[in-house]
């Protein structure tokens, strides 16, 4: 909402009475710097991805993304997101429900812990899992003797992805649920609804758009995550390579056309995410506003 309040100042007429005392040169310079920055660091790279991807023609492009290793990477990425996102929806809902609707000891600790993945380098998060479940890790011998493979396999990738994307859902929901308070739930309980029915029929509908918003962001990150997954995946082509890892491998092999082709899919995902995000923000601004801090 502050954006709307500031906008009239920025578009104040250069001619005639002015709202601010800055000289026109200062205004033009500031706006120019912002625009150049935007083009140089955001628009140009995005355009470059698509240009490079299509440079060798559509045939090469489709060959690159239908090649078996690429298809395996796409499938793995979708599978990981399909596990990690629902898991984080459940964890995020449970955590925000607890934090926003109840008073208990250690609440602020829990609140801080949720943010931990944001403040830890993804590589470190990956290493933690190697340390725990790797061959030389704490549980390594036990897992090996039971033939359970976590590191360099799907479970490790899923665990690392869940860890890294954990805050997205909870961070959207906690402020909104705190703002909504507990009155609706209390009203439902006093009308005879059980706790579960109260959650399904009152709490969940109240947060549905913020939840969807959180899911979209969580999904984008889950599919795009590189660092943590890179440590635990082992980069086995066609087996444990996700799309970002596949892009890296192709690039390191100087196979630029194929690298950018797969990268363009990720860029496309980012664009779709952005469109959904803007759509949600536009349509349900009031319900998402409480959580707009990112």
């Amino acid at each position, binding site marked *: 909402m502050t954006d709307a309040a500031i906008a009239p100042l920025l578009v104040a007429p250069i001619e005639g009475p002015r709202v601010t005392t800055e000289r026109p040169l200062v205004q033009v310079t500031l706006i120019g710097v912002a625009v150049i920055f935007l083009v140089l660091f955001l628009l140009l790279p995005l355009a470059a991805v698509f240009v490079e991807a299509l440079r060798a023609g559509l045939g090469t492009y489709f060959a690159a993304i239908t090649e078996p290793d690429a298809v395996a990477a796409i499938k793995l990425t979708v599978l990981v997101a399909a596990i990690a996102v629902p898991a984080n929806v459940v964890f995020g809902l449970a955590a925000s429900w607890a934090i926003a609707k109840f008073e208990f000891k250690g609440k602020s600790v829990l609140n801080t812990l949720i943010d931990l993945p944001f403040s830890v380098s993804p590589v470190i998060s990956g290493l933690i899992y190697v340390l725990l479940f790797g061959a030389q890790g704490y549980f390594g011998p036990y897992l090996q003797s039971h033939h359970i493979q976590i590191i360099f396999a799907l479970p490790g990738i899923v665990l690392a992805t869940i860890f890294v994307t954990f805050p997205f859902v909870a961070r959207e929901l906690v402020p909104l649920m705190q703002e909504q308070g507990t*009155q609706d739930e*209390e009203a439902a309980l*006093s009308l*005879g609804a059980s706790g579960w029915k109260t959650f399904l*029929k009152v709490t969940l509908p109240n947060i549905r758009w913020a939840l969807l918003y959180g899911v979209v962001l969580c999904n984008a990150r889950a599919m795009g995550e590189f660092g943590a997954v890179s440590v635990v995946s082992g980069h086995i082509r066609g087996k444990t390579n996700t799309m970002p890892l596949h892009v890296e491998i192709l690039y390191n092999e100087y196979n630029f056309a194929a690298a950018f082709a797969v990268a363009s899919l990720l860029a496309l995902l980012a664009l779709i995410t952005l469109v959904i995000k803007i759509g949600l923000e536009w349509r349900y601004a009031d319900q998402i506003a409480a959580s707009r801090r990112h």
Partner: protein
Amino acid sequence: MDARAVNEVNSAAGGVWPLSWTTRWDRPMHVNVQNVVRTFGVTPALHGVSLEIEPGELVALLGPSGSGKTTLLRILAGLDIPTEGRVMFDGDDALKLTVQQRNVGLVFQNYALFRHMNVLDNIGFGLRVRPRTRRPSRKEICKRALELLDLVQLSGLEKRFPSQLSGGQRQRVAFARALAIEPRLLLLDEPFGALDAKVRRDLRRWLLELHNKTGHTTVFVTHDQEEALELADRVVVMSEGRVEQIGTPDDVYDAPNSPFVFSFIGESSVLPVRVEQRKVWLNEKPLDLPASDVPNGPAKLFLRPHDVDVVDNVSGAIVGEVTVLRRHAGLRRVDLEVGAQRHRIEIELPADFSLNLASPVAFLPRRYRLYPASQALGS
């Protein structure tokens, strides 16, 4: 609030209670609160509150914020649990019942309507969430919700969403929703707190009509003494987690049993005086005010600013010098400085009463209360 809502409230008084509802309800409930204590951590919110509410009674819990009135209401609703004490509903231990089992109709200050449901679904919610065995058919729920909508005079608005209603309309939907579960007890938390003055007045009248028709035992929380006095059969005045006085509106207004109640309910003026020889003394001068049951010594004289007579005879009267004159509705408010300490006191006189600044005025209160200085608060 828009004018339409106000008109609807006005016409609400004429609504007819559907026959099917009057016959369905059981006898209104009797509530007995015994020595209820509630502490949050180390902070006590209620220190031993006892209260008996007769079936069908409309009781106001009145007090400033922090007096514990909302805590008491939440304990009755089952949303909070007392640290000590008992709550009996019709002689049964209510504390053994969960909030769902208590079957209490609760209306919140901000209504807490479910924003994603239309009016009809809001009202029918309590019936829809019942276990299958006790749940009426979909058709029956709809019929009952429509009846209730008619009762609260909002027929035709069943498809609206809460955001499309005025404050007064939301309040009445909240009432209908609470009534839908056929509650044994109706609890209202600051029911008119979020409404503007005109709608408040109209809704008060509407609530009285509704209460007379449905006959629920009803408890409402308010910090507005005017609202409590106008609506309630009995008023429970609370302060700092204790019950100060329980009585009819006349009792608490005319015979407040403590300085707190006197100054909290209605307007009051206070003068420091002495009691000796069964008389009130102001600055070594005896006043024509008997002080029969107050111990000798310093005391505070409480009076209502509008409840005074100006007298010609200066001896035996309170004499003050006019410092401020203000017009207030049909009256004139007069600030006086009394005695050598120039103690400030406010009285109200007819607007046409001729007065000048700095002129002396002699008056006597028609009604007053004396409290020993040790008991009295404030100036």
